[in-house]
């Protein structure tokens, strides 16, 4: 697993756990929040991949 994937995976776990905990405390509607935000992980991952590819091109 590359650094990018580890970063995405870590943020994924962190976010899901955080939202779930806030939901259990009644501070947010966990399902509504997760439903709205889950595609962000795909965007984030894609952005990191693009950044990494760009940087590899520059350093070459």
């Amino acid at each position, binding site marked *: *697993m*590359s650094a990018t*994937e580890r970063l*995405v*995976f870590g943020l*994924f776990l962190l976010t*899901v756990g955080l939202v779930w905990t806030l*939901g*259990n405390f*009644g*501070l947010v*509607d966990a*399902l*509504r929040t*997760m*439903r709205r935000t*889950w*595609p962000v*992980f*795909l965007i984030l*991952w894609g952005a990191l991949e693009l950044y990494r590819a760009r940087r590899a091109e520059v350093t070459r």
Partner: protein
Amino acid sequence: MRAARAGLFLLIMGFGGVVETAWQVRERVPGGAKFGWRIFRGRYEGPSFPFEQAPQVMPLAAGSSLDVGNEFGAVRVTAGQAGEARILLRTVVFERDQETARQFASRIKLATRTEGSVLHVGTNRQDVERGQDVGDTGFETHLEIQVPEGTPLRLRNEHGETSVADVGALDLEGSYDTVDVQRVKGDAKVLVRHANASVSDVGGALELTARHGDVNAQRVTGAVRLDTQHGDAELDSNAGLVASMRHGTLQARHVGGALDVQGEHTEVNARDVAGAANVRTTYRNVELEDVKGQVTVDSQQGSVKILRVGGSAEVKAHHDRVELDAVTGPVKVVVENGSVEARGLHGGGEIQASHDSIDVDGWSGALTVAGDNASVHLATDKPLSGRLDVRTSHDGVKIELPSNGALELTANAEHGDVRVDLPGFTVTSQQSNHASGRVGSGGPVVVLQTNNGTIDVSAAEAAQ
């Protein structure tokens, strides 16, 4: 690396799929919005605001009874002043802000009516929930009721704590939250689902039914009838106990009468039983101590331990061990594929076991031991007072008898040896696999028989 990428991609997409599916179910299933999908572990979750209404006082003549129905909220019934019922409704509305919640709460009312000698207390929850603009607003209705001490009570509550004290005859059903009952003057009937229940100081009999929760009942003047599934039960002090249990553990102390347990996957642990004890269970252990009456146990795939019995003991067990200690009456023990360990069988009896061992230390009266592929070891330090008959197969027999007792012995070991080493033993016939004779002028008959094993008879230390 590719596998890791694919795995992470599938994880995120799978997570998204689950979330989307849950969302669609929440939005589209009829009734989903009505009940509020914020219910979590039987309660509403989310921002909430409490509101309290002025208490309502209603006359309640002597001899009247109370009937309470509630959902999603605690109900507390306690003793109050004579001649009146005092009812307090506290609502909790789950809304995003206080003003919206206040408007919603203003629609929630107490619903009381008197029919004959019964005062019915509830709320208008159903009317509120039928309203068009309820959406997914959740609300709790908490009732605090004071009635004259000893008022008979019928109570139904779901999704809220239920607490009852100082009432008359009680008929209570509660679910999804704890039930606590104290000081009931008459009989009590309690049914609880998906929650724990505690009942104490019941003046009459108790009928306690529980599903998916633990129960505790103490100081019941009458008998207890217990019916539980998927939960443990702890009972102390009652006039008798009839229990039907599945998947749980029963602990009973100070049973003033008979104990009858029909269990499946149920562990039974009972002490101080004044009457007889009858236990039938599977896959879990049975332990009975200090039973004054007769004991009957049928256990499959679980061990049996019985200590200090005033009457007789009849035990059937399979695939585990049986332990007996200090049984006054005769015993009858049948164990398939398990061992028997017994001490102090004051009434003698019969013991059968297969594919394990039989070990008896001290007995009186006649004793018959039958083993099948089982070793037998018997020892006593007191002179025999009855016939001893031991038969087994494919294993040995070892007997330790007092040197000061008279007896008439016959021992046969087919395909084995017989050794007798008793002081004063007079041989009448003896071969390597056979011995017969007597000690003293003859006494109780001792017959020992095995095949493919050795018989060893020796002297035990004399009793002090």
